[in-house]
């Protein structure tokens, strides 16, 4: 065998790099300057709009007068409370909350049985269902609403007259997130074994679903409910185009009349959604802790 010759440092084809043995290795600390700069720049970019929005919403000092000396002046919630007093405020907020609730209910009623069914009875349909659930990415809200105009306006105008006609389209919009969340939850708990165990212990299908499956899926159910709510509370495209007075549409119109009030409402939406997220994180964390102690 024409093998590699004796692996000596010199004399082979491999140049032996050597000579600057005394040169100290590059310090690891210097390697972090770039990444740290990126992190700091990102922090500024992502926090600045939130700070400026908060200031604009809650401080009644016009920008030209804002200075170091006036930075603590005239902070108040009055722009927000004025907005709260608008007659449309409670109507639209209530509508949006109802829409969110309806969307959550329809989403769960539709997706949980479907996802369970696919996992338990029809695994070969999984790629198809997964493909269908990403379709809403291909038909973005603005195209979907064009479709609503094209199909439902001429064929089922009565349907569009109801404010709640938005619900099914919101379900479709949130589908990529919600299905993935529920699907991941089902994958994580190994439904097959749970169902087999529960059924072998004599439980009927409904009680298996209620007592074995749903409690174990609660984390992903809560998570998809939150995602859905966030989508609905921020949705503007479809509601605007179909002329439905939802809360985001009201905020936008109010901004046209009272800039500060509109921005206060946007801040209100943001803080509300974030609080919801915090609540949901807390809920799921407690849930998972209970699960780990139980098993």
């Amino acid at each position, binding site marked *: 065998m024409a093998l590699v010759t004796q692996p000596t440092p010199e004399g082979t084809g491999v140049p032996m790099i050597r000579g600057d043995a005394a040169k100290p290795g590059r310090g690891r600390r210097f390697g972090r300057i770039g990444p740290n700069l990126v992190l700091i720049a990102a922090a500024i970019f992502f926090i600045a*709009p*939130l700070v400026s929005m908060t200031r604009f919403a809650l401080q009644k000092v016009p920008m030209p007068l804002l200075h170091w000396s006036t930075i603590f002046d005239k902070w108040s919630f009055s722009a927000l409370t004025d907005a709260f007093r608008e007659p449309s405020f409670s109507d639209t907020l209530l509508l949006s909350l109802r829409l969110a609730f309806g969307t959550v209910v329809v989403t769960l009623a539709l997706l949980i049985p479907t996802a369970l069914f696919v996992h338990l009875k*029809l695994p070969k349909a999984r790629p198809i269902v997964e493909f269908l659930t990403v379709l809403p990415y291909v038909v973005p809200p*603005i*195209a*979907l609403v*064009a479709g609503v105009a094209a199909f439902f306006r001429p064929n089922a105008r009565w349907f569009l007259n109801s404010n709640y006609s938005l619900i099914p389209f919101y379900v479709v919009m949130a589908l990529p997130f919600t299905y993935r969340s529920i699907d991941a939850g089902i994958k994580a708990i190994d439904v097959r074994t749970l169902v087999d165990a529960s*059924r072998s212990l004599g439980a009927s299908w409904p009680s298996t679903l209620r007592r074995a499956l749903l409690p174990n899926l609660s984390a992903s159910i809560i998570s998809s409910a939150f995602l859905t709510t966030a989508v609905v509370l*921020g949705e503007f495209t479809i509601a605007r185009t179909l002329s439905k007075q939802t809360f985001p549409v009201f905020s936008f119109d109010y901004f046209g009349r009272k800039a500060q009030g509109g921005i206060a409402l946007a801040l209100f939406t943001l803080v509300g959604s974030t609080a919801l997220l915090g609540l949901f994180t807390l809920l799921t964390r407690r849930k998972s802790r209970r699960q780990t102690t139980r098993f």
Partner: protein
Amino acid sequence: MTAELIEVEGGRTKSAAPKAAKIRSGTAWFGLLPFLLFLGLFLVLPTYGVVRKAFIANDGSYTWTGISDAISKEGAAFRTSLKVSIVTALLGVVLGTLLAYAAATATRPKWLRSLVSAFSGVAANMGGIVLAFAFFTLLGRQGLGTKMLNNIGYNLYDTGWFDLTGFWGWSTVYMYFQVPLMVLVTLPAIDGLQASWREASSNLGGTTWTYWRRVGLPILAPSMLGGFLLLFANAFSAFATAYALNTGSNLVPVKISFFLQGDISGRSPMPFALATWMIIIMAVSMGGYLFLRKRAERWRS
């Protein structure tokens, strides 16, 4: 006890197997019916409606003029939309990858990585009017950021290139969701880079640059290319942010909305032709994204 339990389970599985097989043969698909009907009614039919209307002329005959008119008459909107989408996608890919890398390799505060990933999850979905309003207060003519830049001697609006309601304004605002979206796409890929590859490379005589050129970037490439397509699609279809910044924006989604609201009769094929083009563009870029994501996952075992 245990043996009995196993017996019972074994017996059950045996008796259940033929039943399951019988169900599977045909009736099983009925279980999907509600889901399929729902999607058919609220996604497929509207989509079909859009495409059909795009091809119907005012007299009811089928025609290509609507589709070609959309390009010829609204070419400017397409150009602007493509430009914004490509620019923000490119910048988003680069900045998002850098941010993800910085977060993934940071060791100091332990919570930093999960903070970046959680925030990205929220911000990536934070389009819409809230975002537009936030940037209005920051970089509008009377914005806090504009004023602060002015104080350090840089007048943003005097330089002429920037206007919040213009190209670079949209692009800046779009970055707020583009970068986090890229972080979400690329963070798993960066996590997949094993430290020992880097060590193996330097052990074999490679410098940091050699490693990135021959190993690191080629491994990240499918994720980055896929991320580009996803970000492109994301920007191309974004409506609410652009609309809230400037209701007259010359972007394809804003044009669709404009034509839809302007023409109650629903006769004009223009909004539907534009929407059809959008669906085509979405389908191509999302298909490419899903394909590349598969490719990127191939190496992760």
